[in-house]
């Protein structure tokens, strides 16, 4: 007790100083809006940064889930879209009552490309869906900006597709403006271009015409945008144009794709 008193007396000036400073600080924080706000906010300057970084990391890891859910939603929307288009085509040419005309020939399955090549003579890619998800050989694969390929082999979990950049790929395509149709093939030129063959010479073509899928095969629905006419010519003595088509989709960057399950194809093949 004595020591404590001695201590207090000895350091009384310092204690007084500390006391007064504390009073001043309390006054500052209590009566100045600025300082109070700063006091409350300045912790946020630091913690905000931490939270922000953590949030970014969290969101980054969560992006995959978000993208997957968006892709499946896209697949649903594409299914509806193709079915509706098909139904409209059907209605235009028939006198049947409306409810019997509603067709649902398509089902779209979303998938991701996990392996891809563009620099070979015959290119393939692999997707992360297999027969368990309803993938079967011969189904068409479309991509956000065009078409990608045709399923070649499917096992339970994965499926391999021949890319449209494959010597065996022949896609029935037509010119949107006048409905002339031909076969789209790849001639190992450049992964950005394909050749549309068998368009007769009387067809009226200009550079920039839109090329779409014709819908005459059981692979792709009608009307998927493939690319545009880049240049065209006739090879000596031929009655058909050779049209170089600039692909809208960059095949080298395929990531999310949609597999078209065309039910009529199944019925045909059975």
């Amino acid at each position, binding site marked *: 007790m004595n020591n404590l008193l001695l201590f207090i007396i000895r350091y009384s000036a310092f204690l007084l100083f500390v006391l007064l400073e504390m009073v*001043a*600080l309390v006054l500052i924080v209590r009566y*100045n809006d600025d300082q109070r706000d*700063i006091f409350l906010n300045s912790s946020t300057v630091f913690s905000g940064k931490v939270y922000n970084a953590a949030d970014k990391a969290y969101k980054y890891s969560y992006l995959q889930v978000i993208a997957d859910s968006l892709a499946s939603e896209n697949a649903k929307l594409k299914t509806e879209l193709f079915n509706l288009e098909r139904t409209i085509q059907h209605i235009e040419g028939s006198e049947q009552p409306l409810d019997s005309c509603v067709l649902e020939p398509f089902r779209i399955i979303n998938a991701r490309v996990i392996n891809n090549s563009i620099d070979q003579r015959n290119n393939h890619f692999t997707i992360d869906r297999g027969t368990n998800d309803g993938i079967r050989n011969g189904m068409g694969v479309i991509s956000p900006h065009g078409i990608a390929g045709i399923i070649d082999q499917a096992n339970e979990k994965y499926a391999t597709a021949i890319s449209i950049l494959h010597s065996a790929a022949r896609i029935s395509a037509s010119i949107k403006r006048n409905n002339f149709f031909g076969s789209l093939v790849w001639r190992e030129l450049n992964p950005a271009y394909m050749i549309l063959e068998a368009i007769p010479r009387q067809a009226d073509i200009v550079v920039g015409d839109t090329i779409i899928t014709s819908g005459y095969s059981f692979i792709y629905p009608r009307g998927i945008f493939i690319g545009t006419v880049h240049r065209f010519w006739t090879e000596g003595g031929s009655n058909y144009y050779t049209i170089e088509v600039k692909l809208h989709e960059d095949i080298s960057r395929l990531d999310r794709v949609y597999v078209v399950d065309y039910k009529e194809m199944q019925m045909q093949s059975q």
Partner: protein
Amino acid sequence: MNRETLRHIIRGMLFLIVQVLILKRISSGSQWLWLNGEIFIYPIIVLLLPIRLSRHYVTLISFCLGLFIDMFYDTVGIHAFALTAMGYARGIILSYLEPRGGYQLTMSPTRHSMGINWLLAYTSLLFIVYVFLYFTVEIFTFVYVGKILVKTIITFLLSMMTIMGYHMLFNPRR
């Protein structure tokens, strides 16, 4: 209350009037003080207190003076905080600058009594404490340490010029 005390009180009031009515207007309302520097002269009241006055009194007087100025600057506690620290630091600086043989009874912290070198060291050391703490508490976060330093330096230079000008012009004996 003797003449000595009365002299300090009257002089102090004059400094307060100059600070509140003149210097405050110059610093708060003008663009030509770059980066919102301030000019403080009133801490000279604490600097001019008699050397032998006890630390308790100096600290207490500083606190009250700071609160008084706060009333005019609408900054409750900020001047009080900085000036209390300066008042307490005064004792430390005084013993640090103590001449050989200690302080004489007749000595007071003025140019007339201690010489220009001593006064310059004494004033600038204490003033830097005051100004730095003032802006630290005003801005209240070390996130803007650059802003604090710039304001401290500008205000320090301006205030030192004012205070040394006072010492040069009036050369107070006590």
